[in-house]
């Protein structure tokens, strides 16, 4: 059982929670978080690793309160136990060279650990980050630790600002309309793009088939075969 180290609101409806005692994971992986004993809130909720520190053993999540489960997370206090099953999922595969990261809203969360791993992997590569928020922004300062540039847009998609014709790989996470826009732009420019997808999950490990999507490599489970996919594979699923 993991222990909550901190749990604070960082923007309207957005919380950051740090836990210890869970195995550390890689960028793009997620945990199924659940308050132990809560038969009522039966299933775990998939929440991405926002920061994973192998040194301290702490994992940080950033989550938005949208329903019963995440609202319950927001009531948890440091010292309380939380059941963190994981890390699950494939995670981002780290490519070399110039990298462009595109996040929308809470989809920004898993990209921070990605930026960190990319920077640690190669201190010299160029990393450009584009973040879009409907209203209040968050996490942009944290990105500045790892990125060469951070562009933040409030009140709209940041997608329009991104140049997809660079000799770079692109990573994106965010709401479905944003992912579709990014995929369209990448297709036109024939760019390399990885998307992190979301779907309602029950098991998180690939056993229930609650989260499968059609890919051009057949049906895949977002929790187990994803959540990160090459955008070409999942054009029909977003």
């Amino acid at each position, binding site marked *: 059982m993991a222990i909550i180290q901190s749990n604070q609101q960082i923007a309207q409806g957005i919380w950051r929670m740090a836990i210890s005692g869970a195995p550390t994971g890689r960028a793009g992986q997620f945990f199924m978080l659940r308050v132990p004993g809560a038969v009522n809130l039966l299933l775990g909720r998939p929440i991405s690793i926002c920061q994973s520190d192998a040194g301290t053993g702490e994992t940080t999540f950033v989550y938005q309160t949208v329903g019963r489960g995440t609202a319950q997370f927001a009531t948890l206090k440091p010292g309380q136990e939380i059941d963190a099953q994981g890390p699950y999922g494939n995670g981002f595969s780290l490519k070399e060279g110039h990298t462009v990261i595109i996040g929308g809203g809470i989809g920004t969360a898993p990209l921070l650990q990605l930026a960190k791993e990319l920077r640690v992997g190669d201190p010299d590569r160029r990393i450009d980050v584009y973040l879009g928020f409907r209203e209040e922004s968050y996490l942009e300062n944290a990105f500045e630790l790892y990125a060469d540039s951070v562009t933040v847009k409030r009140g709209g998609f940041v997608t329009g600002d991104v140049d997809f014709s660079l000799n770079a790989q692109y990573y994106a996470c965010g709401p479905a309309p944003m992912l579709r826009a990014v995929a369209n732009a990448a297709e036109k420019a024939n760019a390399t793009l990885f998307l992190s997808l979301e779907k309602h999950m*029950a098991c998180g490990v690939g056993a229930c088939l609650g989260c499968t999507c059609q890919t051009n490599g057949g*049906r895949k489970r977002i929790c187990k075969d994803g959540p990160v996919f090459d955008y070409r594979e999942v054009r029909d699923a977003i």
Partner: protein
Amino acid sequence: MPSSPLCLSLCGVALQNPVIAASGTFGFGHEYAEILDVSRLGGISGKGLTLHGSAGNKGVRVYETPAGMLNSIGMENPGVQHFVDREAAFMRALGPAVIANLGGHCEEDYLEGTRLLNGADIDILELNISCPNVKAGGMALGMLPDTAADITRKVKAVSRHPVMVKLSPNASELVRVARACQEAGADALSLVNTILGMAIDVKEKCAVFDNIYAGLSGPAILPIALRMVHQVAHAVSIPVVGLGGIASAEDALKFMMAGARAVQIGTMSFANPSAMLEVIDGLAGYCASEGLSNLQEIVGII
């Protein structure tokens, strides 16, 4: 193992304990094998198969409800032949009894599926005539005594494996369906499959599921499932396997006291992957503290 107080025989198959992973909640065992010692389970019922395989339903497929969940997977599966060729041997290697769960859209599918499964090294064929998430066949066959008996008789005539018929809690007259299956030659019965339910997204003003209705499982349905297992176990003489919302050893004991020789656990594995192992440990502890030489002594005492 023969002297373990948890061991039992189900349709002539030796199980090391009465805890079986429920169909559709455990894949074919691969996934949980990565995170659990699945060799400790009594049995594994694999994902429901159909003759030709299926991509399942579109749209939202799982949705949480108070103490339960709705699913509308719609029998996504790779088909019987794929199972026979690629999954059965892996399941056997895991250790627990191997149960193949067979669904279908029409009689011919069931019978051809049964024939193909004759070529696989499995222990029990679980005949799923109770899936609420497919349009034709599936649950329809399990709703009435006559159709349930008919498909059971025909599958029994073809199958070289013992046949356990999985009953639907949505059946009009469950007890009559159960008796009819027994008369048609079923070697065992398992119940319940999911209960037909519905969810509405108030914000979007629409049904959550493309199929409108979906199957309810989890602790919420336990009292209903327990009642049905009690009714059926008192009406038939073949073994009954009970399931529906089991979350703890205490819950498993309820089903066994109500007449179930073994239990299956589904939804709770999602919430807590070690739920089944905890139940096994709990049952062993119960036997020790009650001084039972075999747990089967309590089956049907209520």
